[in-house]
């Protein structure tokens, strides 16, 4: 049982984003639905196709260590599902479509500086211009270039707005 817990903790640790979690939950649902009539080879093939790349290795290991009893496997999946759903989400609005490297960099920072059990929900919003806007546990904070520029021109807002409107028309 301890081995199984370690396996599913390893999987949970590899999930970095909300999108990866959704894909993994869909994989669990599919596998659980075919649990009593699926071979190990088929399970591996499904893992390779469905599971997010970051979690494939951990999932492979977990599946190899799984007992043959389908009921026990079902229990492990349910536990894994609960653990995934318990992850907290840090929403990050950025001005670019984040590459995997950027996501990995951010996730590593969060894991190191904030702690485990947090995944990212990265949204591309070009109006941010640069930097990031965060939403976490119902709170909001903005460290964007747009905000900095807005503050910079705060005193001449009317003038700038007129310029924008003139440019837009």
């Amino acid at each position: 049982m301890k081995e199984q817990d370690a396996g599913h903790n390893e999987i949970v640790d590899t999930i970095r984003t909300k999108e990866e979690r959704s894909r993994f939950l869909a994989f669990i649902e599919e596998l659980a639905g075919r649990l009593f009539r699926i071979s190990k080879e088929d399970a591996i093939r499904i893992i390779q196709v469905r599971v997010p790349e970051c979690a494939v290795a951990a999932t492979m290991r977990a599946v190899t260590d799984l007992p043959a009893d389908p009921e026990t496997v079902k229990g492990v999946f349910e536990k894994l599902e609960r653990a995934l759903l318990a992850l907290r989400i840090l929403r990050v609005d950025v001005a670019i479509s984040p590459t995997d490297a950027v996501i990995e960099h951010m996730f590593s920072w969060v894991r190191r500086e904030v702690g485990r059990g947090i995944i990212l929900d990265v949204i591309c919003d070009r109006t941010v211009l640069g930097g990031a806007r965060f939403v976490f546990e119902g709170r909001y904070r903005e460290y964007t270039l747009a905000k900095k520029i807005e503050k910079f021109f705060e005193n001449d807002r009317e003038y700038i707005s007129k310029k924008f409107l003139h440019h837009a028309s």
Partner: protein
Amino acid sequence: MVQAFADIAVDYIIFIAFFILVMLWFVIKKIFLKGAQSEHTPPSSSADILLRAEEKALRVFNSADARALKIVEEADKRAVMIVGDADKRAAEIIHSAELSGADIRKLLEISLQEVVKKESTRLSSVSDELLASYRTSADKAQQAYMRTLEVASNTITGDAREGMLRFQKFLEEEMARQQNLLTQFIQERRDGVLRDIVTYKKSSLQKIDESIYGILLLVSKEVLGKTVDTETHQELIMHALDSAKKENFFTI
């Protein structure tokens, strides 16, 4: 002989009486027809119709009564006169034939008087019957006429009322329909205008956003002193995370 004259006189009297009755019948019929024709006079209003119908009916029947009475009286007079003439003529015939004796004359006179009396009585009876019949007919006709008028009047009144109600209903329905159409038209126009406004607003905002974004990119470049490339973006994001941590944003 006397009997033969008497029979002739009786036949003559009967013929005359029959002629009078026929004439009387035509007169009465004419009066009734005149009254019946007046029923077809187009009315102006329900109240006027009733009033006029009543007045006309009364006039018609009063006139009919008077005429009938006059006719009957005249018929009686003529009958008496005719019988008298018949008597006179019979006497002349008898006298000219030099066949009259005192007894025969007396018998003839008695016979004629009896005939005259009998026919006068009969004629009077006929006249009475005719009058009674006429009065009954008149009453019936009057009632029928009144009923017809009443029905016609009611029908006209009912028709008028129904027509008014129908017209009122039509007006109300038409007004409601027009109001619905107007409301619908206004609503459609309003929706259309709102749609146009929303589209225009969206388009304008998009233009503004694009302009702002373009200007801000330029400004960003000026502010940062360089173009914001992927590496710079990553630096800015990591810097944002550091700032958030410093401000204890991640501390619950």
